[in-house]
């Protein structure tokens, strides 16, 4: 199969994904071969958007959960050099270029330095503009990335289709108000999971068996259409359930 045929196969596969979790998984399957192992895509919050509201802007997220929490808690979105560069509506670029540009900005350096601790050392990013003029930022990162010009083009093309699919699903949920019904126990387990607790720790906190806490998290994961625990937590946060 030729290079472009493979790209077409990735795209048609992505267009059949029916949850944000499945889109993340399929896209990262493609990009991880080039070292891009983490993904964040969402609309740009206005500077000073309250922390609680920032998560509503997330479309696709597969960031390490601790990094996501820190990013929101410390309001990094207002200082992130990648975000400022995307707001200028640049063509796809590499993180390291944006980081070099804003060397003078201390806050920007802090964000990039912190990202490095989570093995997000370099990546690529690009903005897209929706029909109604919203900017969607797409950022893919990893510890060490390596790709040719052709592969760079392939990744940005495939990512565009991934975001398009995510927007279709997002619009669909707006129309039909796709509300996932989580039980109080499932919510409780997700909250503790988002605080970094293991299944055993959660079982001790809630006075249930480890098997039961495991089951609650598994159910929540299925209902939220997530592929793993991290994504279930991210999805629950995105939907504002926890």
């Amino acid at each position, binding site marked *: 199969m*030729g290079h*472009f045929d493979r*790209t*077409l196969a990735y*795209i*048609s596969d992505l*267009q059949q994904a029916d949850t944000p979790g499945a889109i993340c998984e399929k896209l990262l399957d493609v990009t991880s071969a080039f070292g891009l192992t983490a993904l964040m895509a969402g609309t740009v919050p206005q500077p000073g958007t309250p922390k609680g509201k920032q998560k509503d802007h997330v479309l696709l997220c597969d960031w390490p959960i601790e990094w996501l929490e820190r990013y929101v808690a410390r309001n990094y979105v207002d200082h992130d050099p990648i975000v400022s560069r995307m707001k200028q*509506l640049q*063509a796809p670029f590499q993180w390291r270029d944006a980081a070099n540009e804003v060397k003078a900005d201390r806050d920007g350096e802090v964000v990039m330095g912190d990202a490095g601790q989570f093995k997000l050392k370099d990546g690529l990013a690009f*903005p*897209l*503009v*929706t*029909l*109604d*003029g*919203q*900017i*969607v930022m797409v950022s893919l990162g990893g510890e060490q990335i390596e790709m040719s010009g*052709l592969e760079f*083009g*392939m990744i*940005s*093309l495939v990512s*565009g*289709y991934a*975001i*398009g*699919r995510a*927007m*279709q699903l997002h*619009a669909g949920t707006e129309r039909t108000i796709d509300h996932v019904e989580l039980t109080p126990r499932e919510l409780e387990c997700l909250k503790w999971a988002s605080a970094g607790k293991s299944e055993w720790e959660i079982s001790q906190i809630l006075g249930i068996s480890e098997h039961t806490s495991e089951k609650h998290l598994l159910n929540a994961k299925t209902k939220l259409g997530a592929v793993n625990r991290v994504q279930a937590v991210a999805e629950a946060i995105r939907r504002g359930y926890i």
Partner: protein
Amino acid sequence: MLYALTTEELMQRPDLWEAVHRLRHSIFVEEMGWSDLHRDDGLEIDQFDHEEAVHHIVIRDGEVAGYQRMLPTTRPHLLTEVLTDLYVGDPPSGPDVWELTRYAVARDYRDGRRGVSTVGTELIAGFVEWGLPRGINKVIIEFEPMWVLRALQLHFLARPLGYQRTYGRQQVVATLLTFNESTLDVVRTRRAHHAPVLSRGYPDLLGQRQAS
């Protein structure tokens, strides 16, 4: 309203013909810098303005506010003659596939926003509405990659025909968009305008504002 005119019909209306080619020059040559198309008379015309081309013209307040040109793929078109590095393999062609070129919204009708203006979405509603009854359900468009997202938002089925290339400051990717009645529904819903946009006959003489 949107008017679909053949080249011959357009030429029977010199005011409209000139306004169309002037708009094309001002946008593609002066604004986007496609200097190959420059002409001293300020009218942009190329070899594809042939007798089988169909010109879609959006008229607002007695002015040309938007434009796109539809070309049959059963004869040479932009992708096969000019933008040949934008496709891999055999490009799609046939009576059900047309190529959409020179998509343009006049400066005064861009609503001052980053998004797609109402004239812009009228052009989109227009080609879907024009195509369906004619057995045309696919268009090839060479556009900036961010249009992929917008096409998907409007529930077109999209497929790239090749990788994107950089022309000057612009990135372009050739894409095949497939549509049906439900695409038209989504486009109309997004515009909050359900009445047909395609109009029969000719627009009034330009500069004649309709009394409101």
